[in-house]
């Protein structure tokens, strides 16, 4: 019953390399899956599902994508929302205009985004640090401009495509719960894939690049290949997340949804959640999705109608304050807090 490693004998390589070596973790994970797959769709209200949980899943996926790039491979990208936009638009075009089935067109959107992302990752071969960060900011503005100005993509001046009706094998995805399952299944599949990717050879190469890139090159990491793969995988995730966000939550592909503020928010998510952790992506996304709603509700307790400018100002203040506070108090993010709790649990009831 205790959170212990002892008594937990590993008698095969597979069990030695398990994602969750401690039984209680496995139980906890199973409970989370049970909650996500059974309890939430059965009992949560439609408002909760559409407005909080679906965007939470999508942003968690996207934040994880950015975490691969920034947290594992150490390449800062502050134009990541643009890649979500690429995913959203290409999935809508593939599905709505060319009639490719839904799942393949979402995956295809990921592939298209990965191609675009790899292209914008090319500067990383020559520059690094803040110079690279600004170069990735270029992708944000260039992609926004292309989407708005190329009519073939945006289909008009406002850069908005309405979501087509969704079917999987003739089965309509029209209710909140069905959309929820679509987002959830995608998220679980890709999170599992990603977790294993960063545990494997590729993840280690990335971490070596992040820590000291030239040293990594000397010990035989193919710097250029691995950096580009990091960009490709990361933007693939962004593309999938963008497509899911637009299919399941927004209901339209709209460039305003993916402006530079969203890019900054994504960066904030992984910093507050924890750089280079899978769990941190969830924490960060949850924090960013729920915070505005929480502030809104707590303000509504004091006044009848919350004026939108006051709301956005207070949101900005609390937001900024929390970012600063987190960086000072817990510089390694919320995931680190969880780590500390686990360490304490291992020793409990002894102090050390």
């Amino acid at each position, binding site marked *: 019953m205790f959170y212990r490693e002892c008594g937990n004998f590993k008698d095969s390589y597979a069990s030695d390399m398990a994602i969750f070596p401690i039984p209680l973790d496995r139980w906890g994970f199973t409970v989370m899956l049970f909650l996500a797959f059974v309890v939430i769709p059965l009992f949560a209200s439609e408002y909760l599902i559409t407005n909080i949980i679906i965007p939470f899943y999508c942003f968690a996926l996207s934040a994880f994508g950015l975490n691969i790039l920034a947290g594992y491979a150490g390449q800062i990208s502050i134009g990541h929302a643009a890649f979500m936009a690429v995913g959203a638009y290409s999935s809508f075009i593939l599905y709505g205009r060319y009639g490719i089935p839904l799942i393949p067109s979402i995956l295809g959107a990921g592939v298209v985004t990965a191609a675009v992302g790899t292209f914008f990752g090319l500067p990383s071969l020559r520059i690094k640090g*803040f110079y690279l960060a*600004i170069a990735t900011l270029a992708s944000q503005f260039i992609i926004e401009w292309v989407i708005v100005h190329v009519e073939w993509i945006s289909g008009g001046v406002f850069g908005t495509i309405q979501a087509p009706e969704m079917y999987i094998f003739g089965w309509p995805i029209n209710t909140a719960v069905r959309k929820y399952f679509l987002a959830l299944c995608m998220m679980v599949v890709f999170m599992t894939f990603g977790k294993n990717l960063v545990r494997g050879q590729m993840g280690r190469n990335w971490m070596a690049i992040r820590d000291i890139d030239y040293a990594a090159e000397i010990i035989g990491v193919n710097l250029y290949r691995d950096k580009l793969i990091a960009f490709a995988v990361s933007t693939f995730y962004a593309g999938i997340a963008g497509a899911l966000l637009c299919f399941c939550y927004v209901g339209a592909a709209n460039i305003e949804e993916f402006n530079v503020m969203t890019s900054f928010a994504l960066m904030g998510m992984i910093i507050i959640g924890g*750089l280079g952790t899978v769990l941190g992506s969830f924490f960060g996304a949850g924090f960013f999705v729920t915070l505005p709603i929480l502030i809104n509700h707590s303000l509504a307790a004091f006044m009848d109608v919350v004026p939108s400018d006051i709301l956005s100002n207070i949101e900005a203040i609390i937001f*900024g304050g929390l970012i600063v506070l987190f960086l000072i108090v817990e510089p390694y993010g919320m995931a680190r807090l969880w780590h500390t709790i686990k360490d304490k649990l291992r020793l409990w009831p002894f102090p050390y």
Partner: protein
Amino acid sequence: MTFFFEVLVNGLMTGIMYSLVGLGFALIFKASDVFNMAQGAMSLFASLALYGFLEQYMHLPLWLALLCTVAVMTIWAYAIVFVVLKPLVNRPPLMLFMATFGVTYLMEGIGQSIYGTQAKGLNLGIPDNTYEVAGIFISSFDLFFTAVAAVLVVGLVWFFQKTRNGRALRAVSDDHEAALCVGIPLLKAWTITWIVAGVVATVAGVAWGTRLGVQYSLSFIALKALPVLIIGGIDSITGVIIAGLIVGAGENLGEVFIGPYVGGGIQTFFPYLLALLVLYFKPYGLFGKEIIERV
């Protein structure tokens, strides 16, 4: 041909305004290795504060209002250095970068809570006439701020080269530890840097505020200044000035002569494209210090 020169000259003047914002970035990066995302928000806050002192809450004369604004920015500088940066000494640069993000949100939120969100016109009584010089139309307004920028740059160069504090800042930017060893107080140096950056932000905020009106979008001017910064090299003041001129001229010429063929609005990303091009050939910008790494 006259038209070409007119576009060019106007572009150069816009460029000077970009350099003004970029200068703030370069100053702080030089002295503390912090990439200060809050520079745009500082400009916004400064212009809001000036508006508050001039018209909204008090009706001070212009010189007093400017002085008060600088005082407010000094308070911010102290707050940032002692509350935010001091606990974060020796953290990786990315953390400091994110911390300035937080400061950005804080400044925008606080500024707009105090002074309101609607756009305000800032009128400093600078004449807005248009003069014709050799067939080129130049607005006296742009001319005025070009002069102000020039004075500011000369002042900064003098400050960094000749004064005791300026030399201390250069020492700190070269090597934090060595500077500490010879007895330069790090926090004091940082505070001075942030105050200077605050002053630069005030000038930039006033310049842009009178031009575009004091509004939230001033904060995004920083995004325009970022490509200027990397073209010039993050740690070079001369670089920022020259890059500002290049970007301003390139952007205006591009918009007028290339824009119509591709549907216009290329100003939003043209500087970034230029920056990518420059970085391809000079990875540390035109005048940036090249970092040589050894294992």
